[in-house]
């Protein structure tokens, strides 16, 4: 054996050295895989046509996040032919640059939603969210009737847009000033339907998404 035990012995008897070495060894993976992504144009530059969420859609997205929709629905069309055939053009990282947090999901109890926008009417989406089994009897999705009763808080939404702007999302002053009016008398259901109907359509319309 080239390595003599005494070298290891030093390590096995010194708590400080052990702790420092652990910290060093566990750092490489994250440094190598995460840091380059910050400067990777592909992951941080928006795809053509993709803009920050409009006030009502942002409110809807936050409802989606709050309700935990990501636990049963993915928002990621993988680069596999049977996925693009079922759901549409594959997802591109540039489509998600305004998503905080990302909602790609890890389990599909229901179908993928990355390009659900425009596939069903507003009325269908509305009724389906309130009572899914009235439209799809075999579905096991829960109903979300409370969304129709809750109003969007405009002041809170303005604060949220300001926070997003300070994180780097390019909202203009006019957009933030108009937020309160844009969601006046809108319910959480209105907002969520607006979010769903906008999902994945911008990049496709602008020709930014890759064809299947």
């Amino acid at each position: 054996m080239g390595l003599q035990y005494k070298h290891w012995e030093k390590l096995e008897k010194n708590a400080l050295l052990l702790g420092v070495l652990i910290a060093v060894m566990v750092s490489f993976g994250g440094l190598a895989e995460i840091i380059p992504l910050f400067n990777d144009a592909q992951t941080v530059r928006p795809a053509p046509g993709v803009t920050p969420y409009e006030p009502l859609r942002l409110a809807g997205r936050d409802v989606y996040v709050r309700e935990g929709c990501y636990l049963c629905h993915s928002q990621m069309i993988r680069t596999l032919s049977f996925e693009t055939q079922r759901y549409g053009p594959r997802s591109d990282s540039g489509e998600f640059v305004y998503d905080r947090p990302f909602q790609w999901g890890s389990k599909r109890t229901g179908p993928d939603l990355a390009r659900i926008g425009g596939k069903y009417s507003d009325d269908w989406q509305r009724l389906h969210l309130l009572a899914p089994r009235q439209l799809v009897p075999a579905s096991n999705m829960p109903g979300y009737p409370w969304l129709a009763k809750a109003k969007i808080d405009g002041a809170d939404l303005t604060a949220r847009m300001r926070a997003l702007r300070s994180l780097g999302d390019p909202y203009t002053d006019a957009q933030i000033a108009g937020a309160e009016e844009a969601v006046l008398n809108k319910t959480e259901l209105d907002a969520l339907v607006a979010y769903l109907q906008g999902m994945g359509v911008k990049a496709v319309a602008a020709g930014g998404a890759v064809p299947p």
Partner: protein
Amino acid sequence: MARSRRISMPTKESYDDHVIRLFLLAAAVWGVVGMSIGVLAAAQMAWPALNFDISWLTFSRIRANHTFGVIFGFGGSALMGTCYYIVQHTGHVRLAFGRLALFTFWGWQAVIVLAMATMPFGITQAKEYAEPEWFIDLLIAVVWVAFGVVFFGTLARRRIRHIYVSNWYFGALIIAVALLHIVNNLALPVSLTKSYTIYSGAVDAMVQWWYGHNAVAFFLTGGFLGMMYYFVPRQAQQPLWSYRFSIVNFWALISVYMWAGSHHLLYTALPDWVQSVGMVFSLVLLMPSLGSAANGLLTFNGSWDKVRTDPAAKFMVLALVFYAASTFEGSMMAIKSVNSLTHYTDWTVAHVHSGAIGWVAMITIGSLYAMAPRALDRPAMHSVPAMNLHFWLHTAGLLLYIVSMWAAGVTEGLMWRATSADGSLTHDFLSSLIAVQPYYLGRLLGGVLVLSGMVVMAWNLWRTAAHARTEVIKPILVPVPEAIPEPVPDQYPPPLPAKS
């Protein structure tokens, strides 16, 4: 450095078992609570009417209560309790900073209660296994640093110079989870109940699964391996099969695991090179994982009869078998072509639960059964038949659960990709949901069996603690320093004698 102070007078120091008993109780309570929520969630998958149209009882709101309650409530309490027990007993020293240790107990319970009380009301970051909002994350960070201070403080005072391998894993658990937790939860608060993560899109996905995968690596694997390396030799009444092998596996495990997180994002919009790196490292990970499992199992060589007589040993052996099985499965699922079938299906759920119910819960239960009588000043657990009953309930439930979910996962994976002769997809999405409904019932029954086993355990622990509730427990004295022999090396090549 003269780390081992030779004191000539016999010590009157005793082990601090009070905080360990508290963690023991908390682990049993959160185990039952977390798994009950899991059973409700499983029932809602089969019968959606059980959501009752009540927001805070809805599947998507309570799912995180199940995962958080079981991982951090049950697993976390068991980890901290056994860690405090092991660091004292392997170092022949009383816990440092006893009050701070008590703070880590109450602080950790506050974290779990706060998280469980806010998540059903939609106060969530919506990042898997990191759901609690920013103010809870801050409390987690404070408690975790205190945990580190108590652990490393105790290690610094130890009387046995050599640091036993269990403590290596606990040290790595504390350091790595602190790093993961802080980096993944960096967020800008908007209000008390809402924050936005500083990362977005693909970067957020990578950071989250770097966290998510390594929470599994260091919390659910590393920490529980620390538990295994102490309680398996203890229960087998044999020295560890190979101490050197355990050290080699330690360094391999902690350095390789951190690279593997991106295998959760194969075929997604994450840059391809990151996906491939994650897949390769996941395959390398087979070596330390199977090595650790083999080391534990081979420790039973010469005392396999314990499996016949001692239910705690039974739990430990099966835990190691499932550790080997689920890490093998995990590496296979990280292969891109396999992943194209398994990802997004119930196979993922099967894999997680073979690791969680098979490995994590079984090594914990075995260790709790081994530790509880000692911490409660009793010769043995109150009822051995109840331990056996728990073992069979747990094993039957586990098998029913994972077989159901494997069948469901393969069904979904095959139906989603089936293509007819004309090139069109054979099945619509809804057909796959209808096809797996029977398996959802199998899963529910499996979950009920595992939960009833946990109730049996909680009862058994409560009865074992009956004596401790009425009498003052005689503290266990730390051994007299002179009586501690230097470890006799029985490995090849033999270690060199320490320089004087």
